[in-house]
């Protein structure tokens, strides 16, 4: 059974600091997605990672995928308040159309 674990589940940090969210998964997959959810809103796709070593960057966010370690990271550089949200990773099972979701990391960035 494919399981996806995110950590930390909650992160409170100061602006201008750097931090990393981790997404571990339990079985073979080379397709991993990162989403953002603002309070009371729906989910927005951030990154699609499709192969070992894939790295994607958008502004202060950078995501990477290590399929051998079954690990993806979402790195936040010089955080700003606007990045406060809940971040989810999701891994695609190889055999069907389903995504398996992490529990989400609630990120609060204080001015």
């Amino acid at each position, binding site marked *: 059974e494919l399981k996806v674990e995110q950590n930390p589940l909650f992160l409170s940090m100061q602006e201008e600091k750097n931090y990393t969210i981790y997404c571990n998964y339990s079985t073979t997959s080379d397709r991993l997605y990162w989403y953002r959810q603002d309070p009371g*809103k*729906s*989910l*927005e796709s951030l990154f*699609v990672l499709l192969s070992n070593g894939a790295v994607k960057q958008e502004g202060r966010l950078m995501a990477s995928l290590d399929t051998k370690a079954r690990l993806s990271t979402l790195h936040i550089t010089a955080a700003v308040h606007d990045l406060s949200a809940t971040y989810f990773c*999701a891994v695609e099972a190889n055999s069907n*159309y*389903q*995504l398996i*979701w992490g529990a989400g990391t609630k990120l609060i960035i204080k001015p």
Partner: protein
Amino acid sequence: DVKVTQSSRYLVKRTGEKVFLECVQDMDHENMFWYRQDPGLGLRLIYFSYDVKMKEKGDIPEGYSVSREKKERFSLILESASTNQTSMYLCASRVSSYNSPLHFGNGTRLTVT
């Protein structure tokens, strides 16, 4: 831009009522999904459909059914609403490809009293 539209943003229903949640997407996507989201439990898949008239159970299908008569529309039906079905319901769609992200609707917050 892909648009996934859920018919209601907020809904309040009584226990035992039959409830219909509608979802429409405008990008000719083959795959459509219904999730529920609850605090501390993340997203849980109720049903998905990979084509018209096709449906597959997700992780928590009990108490729910779905209908996909047209490609653009995927309906979630609560046959007899119960208080434990109070939740945020999210519809999503994507092209039939392992490489494409899901596009989500704005969600329907359902309260069953």
